[in-house]
């Protein structure tokens, strides 16, 4: 039977809709038929939608003496485990699935996979990070495949302005699995007749890369650890502040603090950066005490430097306007859609400020009054709140956002700042108290602001979880398993937007009352906003 293997080549292609799996199958069949081989392809395409994975299965059979119209090889319509010579996966997890299904075996199968990811809904919709670990696929492939060829074919295809199927076809040629010459491959593309030049370029690129038999380049991309920020400017105040950081913080914490300072300067000003450093100094002093002079590596300060920095650089209207009007942002968008700045284009920004966001931008006293005073709230709401489309490439749109961004120096008088600083102080106070009593629990509390993400309602939901878990942390004081419990609550909070899992988890500890209902659903804006201020003041 092994001799038959040389007559027949079994190929499975797994692709998602729109990746050109069918085109690739047609190229291969066309190539084989042009050489008078027996060729068969079939697929299970399912419904018409362009999602989900499709498997194309091909068998190519070398013509034999004695073949006639009635004596033809019997070709199978579906892959069998252990009987596939070549598996082509147009996406990395589909390579994983092919291995799970037993299509890839060490004695036989060459696995060609694109290392790029098309994320599944389950990975995308998670509240936390649910992205599948690509490394597992690489590890298994190295064990299971006779030969594993993997590189980012989607990127290569994009460079060649073609589609991934052409790169895959090139990789098949480069792998040398099929006994056809380069001319045969290229001829198959030409016969296809659509986008021939681009396909040929992508084919060549794929072939070259596969011939080099590249291992997946950087299978695990190590996350760029925030390096310290080295200030090269002349501002005396900044230099002084950074000298302070240099003096008071250990080498391990210094880069974090420097980066924090940079973020505060970017967000507000030097005064704000100083406030960040002062807050960190206080925490560090306490940790030094609690942690026996840093025996645990200043874990808590390291976490807090990050969470505090992110929180202090909160995204208010001014911040959003600032980011949206920056030139780097324009360039990035041009780059993303592949045009240059001179080409005519229009940016339309979609925003929906509520009365809350409008009032927050006002001075604290005035903002509170507006939120308390029904008619003023209504008026402001009618004037500024509601769904907005803004063109940042038109003069009017750009200038209005630009002016909002210029309010930055006044931010510290705003209601939003008052609310945020009150909350930050309350969190820091709890953190400090906890840290002294229970170091591990302190570290959990330090990481808690990670739950606060997003804008408006999304942010309110995050804050609700944050408040409930903070309160639970107080209730857990003195329990030996307090930090574990807190970690579990945090995981529960990331299960769903509605927070039912967190509510249930709190209930198990008789802490159900800590989970507040969200501010009303059907109420009008003003009373909703008043509740918001109350909640924020807590």
């Amino acid at each position: 039977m092994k001799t038959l293997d040389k007559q027949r080549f079994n190929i499975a292609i797994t692709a998602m809709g729109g990746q050109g799996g069918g085109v690739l199958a047609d190229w291969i069949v066309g190539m084989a038929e042009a050489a008078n081989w027996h060729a068969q392809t079939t697929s299970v395409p399912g419904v018409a939608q362009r999602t989900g994975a499709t498997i194309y299965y091909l068998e190519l059979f070398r013509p034999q003496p004695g073949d006639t119209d009635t004596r033809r090889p019997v070709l199978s319509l579906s892959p069998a485990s252990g009987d596939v010579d070549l598996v082509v996966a147009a996406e990395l997890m589909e390579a994983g699935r092919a291995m799970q299904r037993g299509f890839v075996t060490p004695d036989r199968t060459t696995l060609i996979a694109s290392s790029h990811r098309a994320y599944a809904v389950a990975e995308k919709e998670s509240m936390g990070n649910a992205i599948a670990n690509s490394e597992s696929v690489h590890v298994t492939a190295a064990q299971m495949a006779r030969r594993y060829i993997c590189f980012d074919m989607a990127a290569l295809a994009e460079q060649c302005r073609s589609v991934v199927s052409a790169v895959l076809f090139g990789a098949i040629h480069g792998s040398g699995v099929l006994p056809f010459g380069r001319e045969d491959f290229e001829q198959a593309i030409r016969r296809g007749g659509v986008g021939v030049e681009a396909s040929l370029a992508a084919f060549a690129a794929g072939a070259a890369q596969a011939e080099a038999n590249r291992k997946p380049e950087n299978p695990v991309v190590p996350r760029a650890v925030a390096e310290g920020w080295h200030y090269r400017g002349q501002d005396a105040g900044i230099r002084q502040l950074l000298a302070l950081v240099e003096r008071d913080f250990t080498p391990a914490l210094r880069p974090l603090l420097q980066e924090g300072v940079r973020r505060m300067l970017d967000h507000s000003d030097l005064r704000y950066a100083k406030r960040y450093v002062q807050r960190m100094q206080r925490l560090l002093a306490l940790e030094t005490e609690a942690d026996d002079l840093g025996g645990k590596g200043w874990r808590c300060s390291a976490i807090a430097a990050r969470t505090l920095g992110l929180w202090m650089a909160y995204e208010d209207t001014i911040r959003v306007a600032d980011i949206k009007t920056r030139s780097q942002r324009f360039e990035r968008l041009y780059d993303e859609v592949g045009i240059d700045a001179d080409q005519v284009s229009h940016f339309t920004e979609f925003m929906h400020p509520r009365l809350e966001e409008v009032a927050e931008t006002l001075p604290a006293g005035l903002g509170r009054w507006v939120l308390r005073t029904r008619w003023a709230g209504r008026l402001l709401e009618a004037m500024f709140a509601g769904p907005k489309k803004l063109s940042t490439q038109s003069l009017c749109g750009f200038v209005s956002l630009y002016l909002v961004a210029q309010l930055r120096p006044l931010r510290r008088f705003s209601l939003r700042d008052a609310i945020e600083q009150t909350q930050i102080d309350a969190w820091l106070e709890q953190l400090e108290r906890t840290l002294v009593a229970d170091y591990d629990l302190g570290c959990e509390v330090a990481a808690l602001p990670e739950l606060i993400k997003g804008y408006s309602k999304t942010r309110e939901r995050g804050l609700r979880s944050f408040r409930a878990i903070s309160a639970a942390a107080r209730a857990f004081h003195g329990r030996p398993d307090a930090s574990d419990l807190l970690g579990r609550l945090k995981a529960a909070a990331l299960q769903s937007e509605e927070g039912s899992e967190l509510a249930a988890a709190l209930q198990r500890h008789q802490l159900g009352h800590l989970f507040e209902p969200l501010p009303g659903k059907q109420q009008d804006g003003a009373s909703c906003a008043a509740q918001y201020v109350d909640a924020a003041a807590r």
Partner: protein
Amino acid sequence: MAERSFKSEVKKLHAGDGEVFHGEGILAVTKALLQSGVSYVGGYQGSPISHLMDVLADAREEILDDMGIHFETSASEATAAAMLSASVHYPLRGAVTWKSTVGTNVASDALANLASGGVTGGAVIIIGEDYGEGSSIMQERTHAFAMKSHIWLLDPRPNLPSIVDAVEKSFELSEASHTPVMLQMRIRACHVHGQFVARDNRKAEFSLQDALQNPKRDLSRLVLPPATFLHEREKIEARLPAAIEFIKAQELNEFFPGSREDVGIILQGGSYNTVIRALEHLGLADAYGQSQIPLYVMNVAFPLIDDELLRFAQGKSAVLLVEEGNPEFIEHELHTLFARAGCKTLLQGKAVLPRVGEYTTDVVKAGIRNFLQAQTTDLLQHETALSFVPARPLSLEALSEVVPARPAGFCTGCPERPIFSAIKLLQKERGDFHISCDIGCHLFSILPPFNLGATTMGYGLGSASASAFNVSSDKPAISIMGDGGFWHNGLTSGVGNAVFNKSDGVNLIIDNAYTAATGGQDILSSRAANANLATNNPISRAVEGVGVKWVRTLTRTYDVSAMLKTLREAVSTKGQGPKVIVAQSECMLNLQRREKRNKRADLKAGKRVSEARFAIDEQTCTGDRACIRLSGCPSLTVKENPDPWRSDPVTRIDNSCVGCGLCGENVHADILCPSFVRVEVVRNAGRWETFRRRLSQSVIRRLQKRAQRRHEIYQLDGAA
């Protein structure tokens, strides 16, 4: 006409005597129909037989008219089956097709009537047996319908010459036995690419016009007592023997000899290639199908040919029956046959093969191995592990926790997605509703991220399946139906029923202008003009016609806020009978096919062309992904957070985005984040537009430079 053109496939149907036809299995069937001299073809589209319909729809002028063949897209499978009544009195050959078993379920009333009276002209039903991997329906067998109504069932070997031959023989068999014939094609066989030597297309000698000019009636063929009792007797005493005679004479079933005398395998034609491959793996067959074990291949799965089966079993100690699906009708009948005939050969089927599921090579291999180990003393006795199948390393097991499921979902830019975003928002306000779903693309609402919908009872039955909840409640049931299901039967079974029974429920009809899930075919309410079909019949008028008082038509589903408002109004309106919301926007796949073509042409002609897509500001995105949970668009994806201080991925929009606008609408309707931006790129812009652009850009750049200065002072970008 559906936006996709099948003109190149139509060309292939011209192939004449001796020409080699290359193509898909289902296209080979189409060609075989023309070679068989059919006078009419009908059917209802659905995977895996859609292409048969699509190609014939495009072949009207070029082939069908010349040959005097009437083709129509039937309103439902029942319509298609009823169409076959043209063959009852007249020597007209006709064929219909559908996805089974769902289509056969719908057609079964007409089929039973047809089979009772019998036919004069050949009546053939091409069945797309949607079973096993890739199937989108409940797992059942069409075989049951064949048995209960006495319709012969062909299940040919899955190669193009065998399939084409089976189609041609089906007509002859039908005429020889006055019985309709089903020809069953499995999913992979429909899509298999292969070749066969064509024959000339044949024009029918007796035409449809001839029939109309010389109408016939024969009371004995009508299904009314006492004729029905006669029919029952006829089936058994006349038609069955005639069929058996024909099948034997024409050798429709195949005997493949093998060197072994003591054992054999009986199989359905459709499983032939799989069984051969399994035998090859076990070292018992070669690549050309030369098997050591004798095979009896039933290209006719019903009726069984008793003496052929007994002849095959004679002298063998045991035979294996490979019969896919359950219940195992053939096995039951074979046991009866052996017992009645006193045949002592042991019959094994589901005893060594799984009772359920698709019979893949791996499954069949294990079954044959088990059978031969027990029933012979020399074959595969030491085979403990199946050859080739390797041990599974631990890392492979670990993959099960890594590889995510990838169910089908709405396409990029699908106009149905915003409807479900709106329902999700409605549920956020009012709590969950009982939602009754239907068949069609919209059924993907049951999957994440929407998670909407409790039941689906069949095509067009979305509204009907909420009919029990016709009670007073502040949360009425919401039922969903597509335009396809609506015209298939939902207008009467659902909407009419709700009006008649004074239901207060909410009926959401998704009108994307095509039966999108089956490949974008036209229907009554399609909005494009079609030379051959009467389109542009609005759903709203149809529901008003059956007495609905409360109808709202939304002409842009992407307007999530309007959709939400309408839904709110619908669920809180009382006492006006059923509320019908018609949500209209064209299927994006069809729209894109057309627009891309037009844009390419405009671009070449130097006309202004604008293309829009969405993008995300990664600096303002905080990675909460509320947007994804409200949309689930394939182009709305994630990437690692560019901010090393944040661990959660940020949302990203890839360049498959078609700029449908839903992201922006969702931002407004659910008050999401301000990170979404629509980027419209204009090509061949006019002079005035270019001038205005330059003017505003010069001011914007100046202001940006001014802001940039602050960053320069701080050296903010000076990170090492």
